[in-house]
């Protein structure tokens, strides 16, 4: 039996009057590269935010490493969507990566030399050392994404949750991110990634969750990535019922 990194049971989430996710059950295997795929409004971002306990579900539970407690989140590193961050914030690339160490420092403690070395090596992995002292607003979209992945690496998490990390970035960065993902996977890390490009799913991921308010199907890409399943997820299913 494979170990489970993240588990969701009977999850229902609603904004105002409309359910965004309905009665969802899914397990994400430890050490997998799992993509969450589905049309706009399918509840992809809502699902990962609920897993990270940022949104309170109407019903159901989510577990990280078997635990429902908030403290389990320490093992999770989140790579945000571009729009969620204040890009004009006065911080350098190094500052941002060092933030990945904050989670391991209790109250009142500042990052020490060890933390700085970890941050530097994470920067090196993402080939961003040369930009160490640049302000983040000066970076291109791809560079920003590398910095965020570097922060997640510095965080030294066991589960990486990413929201559309490959959206609007250059090919070199995309290749580097995928290479790093595979490298980290071989070290036993788990990836849960909201992904928008259907053609690259089989190449980049080994597991996939097809989502449209409820699970259409989930499992190894080789088994479930079929035209029929994809169409099932992307047809405007049940929409009339909820938009009224």
């Amino acid at each position: 039996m494979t170990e489970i990194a993240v588990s969701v049971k009977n999850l229902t989430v609603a904004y105002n009057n409309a359910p965004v996710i309905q009665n969802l059950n899914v397990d994400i295997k430890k050490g997998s590269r799992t993509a969450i795929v589905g049309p706009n409004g399918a509840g992809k971002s809502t699902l990962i935010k609920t897993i990270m306990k940022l949104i309170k579900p109407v019903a159901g539970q989510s577990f990280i490493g078997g635990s429902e407690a908030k403290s389990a989140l320490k093992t999770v590193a989140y790579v945000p969507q571009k729009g969620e961050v204040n890009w004009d914030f006065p911080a350098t690339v190094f500052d941002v990566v060092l933030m990945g160490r904050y989670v391991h420092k209790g109250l009142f403690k500042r990052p020490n030399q060890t933390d700085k070395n970890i941050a530097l090596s994470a920067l090196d992995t993402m080939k961003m050392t040369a930009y160490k002292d640049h302000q983040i607003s000066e970076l291109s979209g791809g560079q920003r994404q590398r910095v965020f992945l570097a922060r997640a690496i510095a965080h030294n998490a066991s589960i990486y949750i990413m929201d559309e990390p490959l959206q609007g970035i250059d090919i070199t960065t995309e290749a580097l991110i995928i290479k790093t993902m595979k490298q980290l996977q071989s070290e036993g890390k788990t990836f849960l990634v909201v992904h928008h490009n259907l053609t690259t799913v089989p190449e980049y991921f080994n597991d996939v969750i097809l989502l449209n308010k409820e699970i259409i199907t989930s499992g190894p890409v080789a088994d479930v990535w079929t035209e029929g399943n994809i169409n099932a997820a992307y047809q405007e299913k049940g929409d009339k019922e909820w938009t009224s």
Partner: protein
Amino acid sequence: MDILTSYSFLVVALGTVILAAAAGIIGSVSVLKGQSLIGDAVGHATFPGVVLAFMLTGVMETSILIIGAVSLGIIAFLLINMMTERSKISLDSALAIVLSGFFGLGMALKSYIQGNPNFNGTQGIDDFIFGQAAYILKSDVYLISLISVISLILFLIFYQQIKIYVFDPVYARTIGINVKLINVLILIMTILLIAAGLKSVGAVLIVNILIAPAVIGMLWSNKFSSVLAVAACAGALSAFSGTYISTALTGIATGPAIILSLSICVIISMLAAPKGIVLKKYRMKKLGESL
């Protein structure tokens, strides 16, 4: 009852009612566009304009003071625009800086003329901070009515364009609406109404009569025209009762009285309106049961 039939009360009430109805309608645009607090900054910024106009002319004539108020209001707005467009400064910070800087200038100028024997009759300037309808003259009411009616006519002429501009500025541009013109128009109407309202509501609280009626309207309806109608009615009603309270009881400034009336309408609407808390709770409960 004698207040309600008193001629001077009716004149003043007419002025505040027209003003609040117009402010309710024009203010809806900024509220729908998420720029409610611009009125706050511009309102505060008119204060030094009033003092400057008085310093330059030496007369306490409402129409002259309004010109001063409008000029500084426009300058404040242009500065806010420049700050947010040409730097990473957020609208929020820009408003706070302009609001405090301009009002500070007004405070400094006011203290200067108050300590200066060359200027007589500076007492009236304080009425522009919180508004005192009791001192509103018949000529002031004419001016308020004139400004309000002009704003409303302009609004009606451009109604279709404004409506599209509010809901979808990009689409508005694609179908050839002059978005810049509409923007300038709304701005000028807003500043004129603020300036007209200074003597009855005051610079500090004027933003309320631009926001509160619109919020009430939005709680009762989704339709643009109904939102405007509700906003105008709520504004007019509160202006009337506020002016009445302020006239009937001593020691109550008109501006705060109108705003308290509006606040009560807001609270009632938040609870009881179709989109209010009570009905929403009920719908959520029903949804919970149906799951």
